[in-house]
């Protein structure tokens, strides 16, 4: 990186610049004190900003009608993920129509860049990015989200149902 230093009259006489800055700050201070409503900042966390419902926040693994995971452990999301933060271990399912399912699915949420590529790669609508974004944690918090968290965390109230159902697909002859 290089820094360009321009020598000119203005930056030689910086004191006038400082006062100009202070003037702007002071102006806003007085304005905000007189009219609190139009203040652009929020008193977080008491006040929260309403993002669009399409906001791409923390991941959700969707579930089938019977509540089992929709994910087929195809690993396309893990392949597509530019941050390489998804780890999946696949296994054989006892039901031959399901055949393959993940026994371990983990997203390292601190490494995730929330690009949404995983959601786009998934062929069966199994991973979605939900609107939830406030997930702070204090010392020792778990930021490697596992299946229990991704699919069945209490906020999801038993799981988000997928739009793609194999039984219906088979019934329609596909």
């Amino acid at each position, binding site marked *: 990186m290089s820094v360009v230093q321009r020598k000119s009259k203005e930056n030689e006489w910086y004191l006038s610049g400082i006062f100009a800055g202070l003037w702007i700050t002071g102006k806003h201070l007085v304005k905000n004190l007189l009219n609190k409503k139009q203040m652009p900042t929020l008193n977080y966390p008491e006040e929260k900003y309403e993002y669009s419902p399409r906001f791409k926040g923390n991941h959700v693994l969707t579930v089938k009608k019977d509540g089992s995971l929709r994910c087929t452990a195809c*690993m396309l999301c893990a392949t597509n993920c530019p941050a390489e933060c998804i780890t999946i271990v696949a296994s054989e399912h006892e039901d031959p129509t399901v055949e393959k399912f993940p026994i371990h699915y983990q997203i390292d949420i601190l490494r995730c860049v929330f690009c949404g590529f995983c959601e786009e790669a998934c062929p069966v609508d199994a991973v979605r990015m939900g609107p939830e974004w406030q997930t702070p944690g204090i010392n020792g918090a778990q930021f490697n989200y596992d299946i229990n968290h991704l699919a069945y965390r209490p906020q999801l109230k038993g799981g988000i149902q997928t739009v793609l159902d194999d039984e219906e697909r088979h019934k329609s002859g596909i």
Partner: protein
Amino acid sequence: MPKCTINGQEVVVKDGATIIEAIHHNNQKIAHYCWHPGLSVAGVCRLCMVEIEGNPRLQIACNTVVSEGMKINNTSEKVKDAAKWGLDFHLINHPLDCPICDQAGECGLQDQYMEFGKYDPEMAERKVKKKKVVDLGPTVVLDTERCILCSRCVRFTDEVSKTNELGIFNRGDRSEIGTFDGKELDNKYSLNTVDICPVGALTSKDFRFRQRVWYLKDAQSICTGCSTGCNVKVYFNKEGLFRVKPVFNEKVNGYWMCDEGRDIYKFVNKNARLLKGKKKKPTGFEEFFPGALAKDISSLVTADPGKVAFVVTGQFTNEEYDQVFSLWTKKWGSKNIFHWLNSPEKQNEFDGLLLRGDRNPNTQGLLKRLKDFGISTQWKDLITKINTHEIDTVVVAGPENPIWFPDFKEKLASLAKAKSLIWMQSSNHPEFENVPAGTYLIPLKSFVEKEGTFTNYSGLDQKFSKVTTIVSEALTLTEACTLLAGENLMIRPDPNVLIAAHPTADRVTLEHRKKNEFVFRRGAL
């Protein structure tokens, strides 16, 4: 020797060669499923269509013999159209299984679809549903829906393994592969059917769902499972090795390999390996850096080389034998080198196809070198010499693959009677827990981590190169013996642990990418 023209290129072929063979020898591409160079011709998939000048209709390349002056073309629009429709017919009843299909990434249907696909299917019929996850036997799982009925697997069991377990049952779009009542696909070569199945209908139980194939790199090596020395490809990534597949070599294994040979990767992976140099103390093992340990205990060997015996197995490379034997015989004038032959009564067994009773990759190389260095020792002499304290240090270059050494426990016990025992080996063994105090264990490199030459049963020398590094601290036999001799050795730990020594080129050609990048439509499954 007829002469023909393939896509404008003049080619001379062998008498009686088919068009597809001519195209293959000329390194040109042709779409095909049912033809396999190691099997008879079936001509059932109808994908290998070619245009022959003077013939108004397209012909299949796999069942048409080249005649003098034939002008063959397989790049014309007409041919591409035929392949496109052929493929669409194959896919009428094919399930949408790629996400859960183990073949995805190396699937014939996927590959050809990228090349000839219609991308806009016109089939409105309901798909015929068939059986999924059929347990065919101890090694193979069948999915009848994914099968394209190329009959390669059936022909393999008929012609190569000669066990005739598989057949095609029912008719029309209800036909499916299966085994005869009560029979299982259970032979020593069954996993070859998985290799030759162009789609994901046959999958290997061992490899099933363990990795997606695009996470794996491959490199060529030699199977250490027996003295045939089949040429193989090992597939690995940074977690270790995952599978082994045969590579064509006319002189050795043809297109096949046995099922047991496919397990050799299990002894190479980290969980089966000796990772550190170890010294057994009465309270347990103390761990050392292998090179440092070998150098440290060199006085045991160099103090009186005449009282040291060297026990060697047929699992090392010719280069290692040469260097180690010359160290022993030339430098120390010692001929105390003993050949540990596992199951000598089985040495000359042969199952008629590939598998041999001699479960060492390099017994011939070892015997030749023992002879060249004038060593003719007997195992029983070693035992007597240990008992009479004529030998008090034994250095063992043990097996990479202890499972094929049924006498391992017994040999370990008898050699442990010596005053000090230095055991060098790549794999770990539960019996090591019971060795007496004062035993040293030094980890060696396995065959994928070094380069060298193996001499197979027929005296054929086969060179192989390094694939990857798994235990970076392990030594080769030469390095270990040099250090034991008290000499200095510069060993640089390999920084590229589990990274391909010879990376393979990206197999997706740019043209394919260009073509498919924007054609692919989401949700059009």
